[in-house]
């Protein structure tokens, strides 16, 4: 069965620090990869996604992620975090060839990011 692992449960950083959140998935076939963010009290919002092409994907708010197929990883990065980045971040995988159907998203457990001003 597919699974998504996010290594860090809670990350605490000071403003301007660099961020890297780990995400590994278990499926060996063709996948789509997503990072979602959930700000306190709000809905899940898409940060960025990878379907094919350049493995370095740029998303909103200065976030980027790199797909490394050999490592089954899709780590999220930001060079300099802000207090407003405080949120929970979820990595998700969608198997493009899943039974010929729409497929569904498989989420990691999430990483809570707290940025200290």
């Amino acid at each position, binding site marked *: 069965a597919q699974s*998504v692992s996010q290594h860090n449960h809670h990350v605490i950083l000071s403003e301007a620090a660099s961020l890297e959140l780990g995400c590994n998935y278990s499926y060996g076939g063709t996948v*789509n990869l*997503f990072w*979602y963010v959930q700000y306190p*009290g*709000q*809905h*899940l*919002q*898409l940060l960025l*996604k990878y*379907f094919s092409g350049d493995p370095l994907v740029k998303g909103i708010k200065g976030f980027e992620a790199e797909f490394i197929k050999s490592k089954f990883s899709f780590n999220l990065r930001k060079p300099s975090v802000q207090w407003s980045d405080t949120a929970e971040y*979820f990595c*998700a995988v*969608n198997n*493009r060839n899943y*039974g010929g*159907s*729409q*497929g*569904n*998203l*498989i*989420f*990691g*457990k*999430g990483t809570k990011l707290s940025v200290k001003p």
Partner: protein
Amino acid sequence: EPEVTQTPSHQVTQMGQEVILRCVPISNHLYFYWYRQILGQKVEFLVSFYNNEISEKSEIFDDQFSVERPDGSNFTLKIRSTKLEDSAMYFCASSRETGVNYGYTFGSGTRLTVV
């Protein structure tokens, strides 16, 4: 920017009672989903719905659960006889095309507390 709207934001119900969680997807979207997140755990897929029928469901989506699109705008999740372990945040999502290519737009969620 179009939004997926969920009501209520928080519902408390007694064990054994029926609950209906409501969602208004984005108007030109065709694919609809329910996910849930038990506190401290990962977001889990429940069911997807297209063309007025369930297209996929997970093991969690047993006979106690049902979905409906009663009037062309609302998309509801019904839990017939709630259990304590149904307490979770329930997220509705929709997508214009299959989510494989376009991703999903999620609602803000309904927090269901079963007491």
